[in-house]
Structures are given as C-alpha cells and as structure tokens.
C-alpha cells in the first residue's frame, strides 16, 4: 500500500505543482488586488503613450493612402526605406544628429563637471548659493523663450550683436538666419547656456555626498588641491558621469527638437547644418504630409536608438557592474 501511494504521488507530482502555481497566482491577485488596482491607471497611460506606438512602427512598411486608412493600406515592404536612403537627406540628418550630440555630450560633461568642482571650492555659502540659483535659471526657460533670446541677439536689423557688436569689427547687417555655417556654433552656445548650469548642480550634489574624511586624510598626507581633485573628487564622480553619459549616448539618435526647430526659426536656408532626424520626421509628418518617408525615418531612429541604449548599457556593465542602468 505504502509503496503504491508513493508511486502515485511521484506520477502526479507535476500536476498539483502546476495547479498550486496557478492557485498561488490567483490567490496573490486576490490578496493584492488593491495594489494591482493602484497600478492600473498608470499602466493604461503607459500602454497608450508608449506601447501602442511601439506596435505602430509597422507603419514604416506600409504604403499609406487615406482611402484605405492605416490598417487597410497595402504593404510596401522596404520601399519607404529605399526612398529615404536614396535621397541625400538620410545621410545629412544622421550626420547632423550624431555630430551635434557627440559634441554636446562631451563638452557638456567637461564643462558641467569643471563648473561643479569650481563652485565646490567657493568658500562663501551665500555666494555659492546665489551662483547656483542663477546658473540653473536658463534651464527653466522653454526653448520657445530661448528662441526669442537668440533672436534678440541675431535679429538681422535690430539684434544686439548685429547692431552693436559686429559693427565694431567692421561688419554691418548680417542676417544670421541665412548663414548655415554659423549655426553649429550658435546652437552649441545656446545648448551649453541652457544646460550646463543644471548639469553642474547634479554633479555638485554628488560631490557634496563625498565623505569629508577622505579630504581630511588627503590634507594630512600633504595632498595639494589639484591632487585632491584628480585623486578623490574625479574618481568618485566617475560612476555618475558614466551613468549620465550612457543615458545621453542612448539618445544620440534623438535631439532637442526645440533647439533645432525654434531657435533656428525653422529657416529653410539653414537646413544643411541644422536639420536633424527629429525635425526631419516632424516636417515630413506635419508640413509635407509625407508619411512614408517620415515613418521610415522614425523607424530608423527608434530601432537604432534601442540598440544604442542596450549597447551603451552593456558597455557600462563591462566597465563596472554597479554603474549599469539595468
């Protein structure tokens, strides 16, 4: 008897276990129904804003016409992509996007970190606070406001630079909005003005978190200020520098749309140096109604962006397990 029951038990074993797993799941759902209910609204929002558009990427493979609608339109295979990459647009916007981002990431990192280290050396608490307050202010202004500021300097007739500064160097009446070659510098300056203050406050917060004892010990050992910075501050800042750079690298195929669209006033004359993937997709979608090209560029941006994030993260993981995002 005992023997046969064990055999039976062994034979049945997988079944009850499966059953109990299902049961446990159901029991957990009932037990935690309130927490699940709390998660529900946000989950729906994410589903609408993020998940449905992900599935919408198939539009890039469709030949959209308004008679059949999006779902009913015929499949186009890779036609949209062929058209996109046959034009010189694809190369131009890709190069612009990546080049601007690389420059922004590198210079932003160097400038914010140096600024953070410098402000940490200010001994007056009041002064330090005032500087920080002022430094982060530009970041609170929208890109539309920033576009007005740039315009106030560059207005072809009345602009402060154009009217009062350039004449000192013998130039008169320059319409910057017609000179594409000036824009990499203008956009770089605008971007840095808008973002390094806030960037440095983030690093400053990290510096403040560094234990004072390390510096005390270093001072006892006779370390100079420079040695303290290079041997203590910078190495301890590295993890957060890596994390933020990874985040930025993952977005290297995306750009600050407002910067490239509003600050340039969407001037057609400047496109050779200011058009990026985002403005290209937007124009294709809203102004030109060229859904095929626009959605192909959109797909290209999303998919490469995804691999960039994954790649950057695994790189960080290799360097140091703790610095990876996931």
């Amino acid at each position: 008897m005992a023997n046969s029951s064990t055999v039976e038990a062994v034979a049945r074993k997988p079944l009850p276990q499966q059953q109990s797993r299902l049961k446990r799941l159901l029991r957990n759902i009932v037990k935690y129904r309130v927490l699940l209910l709390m998660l529900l609204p946000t989950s729906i929002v994410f589903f609408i804003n993020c998940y449905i558009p992900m599935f919408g990427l198939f539009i890039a493979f469709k030949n959209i016409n308004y008679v059949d609608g999006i779902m009913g339109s015929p499949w186009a295979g890779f036609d949209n992509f062929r058209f996109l990459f046959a034009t010189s647009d694809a190369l131009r916007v890709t190069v612009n996007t990546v080049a601007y981002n690389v420059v922004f990431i590198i210079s932003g990192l160097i400038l914010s970190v140096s600024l953070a280290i410098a402000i940490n050396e200010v001994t007056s608490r009041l002064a330090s606070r005032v500087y920080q307050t002022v430094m982060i202010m530009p970041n609170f202004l929208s890109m539309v406001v920033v576009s007005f500021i740039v315009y106030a300097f560059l207005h072809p007739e009345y602009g402060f630079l154009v009217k009062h500064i350039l004449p000192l160097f013998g130039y008169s009446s320059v319409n910057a909005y017609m000179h594409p070659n000036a824009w990499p510098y203008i956009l770089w300056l605008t971007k840095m003005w808008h973002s390094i203050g806030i960037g440095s406050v983030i690093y400053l917060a990290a510096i403040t978190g560094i234990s004072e004892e390390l510096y005390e010990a270093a001072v006892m050992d006779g370390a100079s200020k420079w040695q303290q910075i290079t041997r203590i501050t910078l190495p301890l800042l590295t993890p957060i520098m890596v994390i933020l750079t990874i985040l930025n690298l993952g977005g290297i195929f995306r750009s600050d749309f407002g910067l490239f669209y509003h600050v340039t006033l969407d001037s057609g004359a400047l496109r050779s140096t200011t058009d990026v993937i985002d403005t290209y997709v937007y124009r294709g979608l809203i102004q030109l109604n060229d859904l095929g090209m626009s959605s192909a560029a959109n797909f290209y941006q999303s998919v490469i962006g995804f691999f960039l994030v994954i790649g950057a993260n695994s790189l960080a993981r290799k360097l140091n397990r703790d610095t990876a995002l996931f």
Partner: protein
Amino acid sequence: MNTASNTKSYSKGPKGAQMILHIFFIAFSLACILPVLLIVAISLTNEKALTLQGYKFWPDKIDLSAYQYLFNHSETLAKAYGVSLTVTITGTLLAVLLIALYAYPLYRRDFPFKKAFNFYLLITMLFSGGLVPFYLLYVNFLNLKDSLIALILPGLSNAFYIFIARTFFQQTVPEEMIESGKLDGASEWRIFFQLVLPISLPVLATIALFTTLMYWNDWFNSMLFINNTDLYSLQYVMIQMIRQAEFFKNQLAGSGVALLVQESVPTESLRMAMVIVSIGPILFIYPFFQKYFTKGLTIGAIKG
C-alpha cells in the same frame, strides 16, 4: 542647498584663488542672466527707439506701451493663460498621483508582481515608437485633435519619476510602518494616503515642481495637436508671434504701410513683453524649486 558646507576640513585656498573664483562665477552668472534682461529691456523700450537704435540693454526712456497693448488686447493672452494654467494644474496633479500610485506597489517588498511591473516601465525607457505612430494614434484613433486631453495625457507617462519616487519610498518609508498600519486594521488605501504620502512630501513636491515646469513650458503637443485658436497655450502663442511677425514684416516691407503699422502696434517690444509675461509664473515658483532641488536631484542620481 548647503553644498559649500563641507569647507571646514576641505582646506580653504588662498585669498587670491577665492577672488578668481568669484570673478569667474560673477561673470558666468551675468552670462546666464543678461540675455533674459535684454528681453526685459526690449519689452520696455519705445518702438521707434528700437527701430532706430536696435535692441539695447538699457532703454533711453522706459515705455510701457507694449504691456499696455498686451493688457488692452488681452483676449488672446487671457485665453492662452487659461489654457496653460488648466493644463499645468490638471496635468501636475494627475501626474503626481499616478506616479505615486505606481511607485508605491513597486516599493512594497511583499508585492509578488513587482518584477513584472518594473519591467513594464523599463521597456518604455528603452524603446519608443517615435513621433509618427504616436501622432497617428492621438489624431486618428483617439480623436484628440483640438482637445486639452492631448496636451495633458502625453506628460503623464514618466518612468523616470516613478523610479525616483520608488527609491525615495525605499529610503524613507519603513516597512514596519506599513505592517503596523495593517495590524491596526487600516486598508491599503488608507495606508497609502494617510501614512505613506504624508511622509513622502519632499519627493512629491520635487516631482510636482518638475512636472509643473514641463507642462508650463510645453509647446510640442500644442504644435502637434492644436489648430483651434481658443486652445492655444502661451508657448504656442509665442511661437505664432515669432513666426508671424516676421511674415507680417516681409509682407509690408518697402511699402509705406510698414511705418504706419509699426507706429500703431509695438510689434517688436510687444513680442518681448509677451515672453516676459510667460516667464513670470516660473520666476514665481522658482524659490520653491530651490528648496527641493538638490534633494530631488540627489535622489534621482541614485541607481533606480
């Protein structure tokens, strides 16, 4: 923001070095502030003086006519303010509530579906459908063109803030408190609203302020979804102003009408006055930002 407080042992540099630092930071601060002051100055300058002398940092004579014009013909402005305020307040309240509601179960150690919902969020940070499907969904399927929902809904999904809130809960809300709440017979809702939220005010305030700023400064969704002039937000009105005035000028350039129009409507200073009016509320909430700022940023820097 007592970030300079660790100076006791962090040996003070020589006086000269401090001087150089101060000179540098004063120059840097000026570089941050002066461009905005230029806008203020233009908005206060007489239109004729502007066309003669260009934009200057110091108006010869302060002229408030741009602001007068703005407030006399304020229907557009009032409407835009109304739209921006409605969107910002509704959006911020909803966003904070939704973020807290999602972050709380993720923090609960005993919650068995934590991993799945974490993953659900993470994916949204890694991969995005991009603009085209997003636009088509909103316009063709949800029919949200010319609706305020189209201005609020996109801002509600922010995975990053959820991770920040969760990290904050983990650091400051003791598990025992939840336990004791349960023992006292409090429902999950009650624990959440009466125990967890009150002690999480710092992080909620940080997120609320960031969200306020995001909604107030948003122009992108207006540009995508709004055609009805009654629903223009402040930012969108400004976009129209910077583009249309240019158009307006080009149309009239060379004709005698230009001078006439310029005299009756202070176009140049008016535009800048509009910018100042739109920045106003931000400067108003700025001190509140200051208070929570470093805290919020530090929490954000901790690995999620």
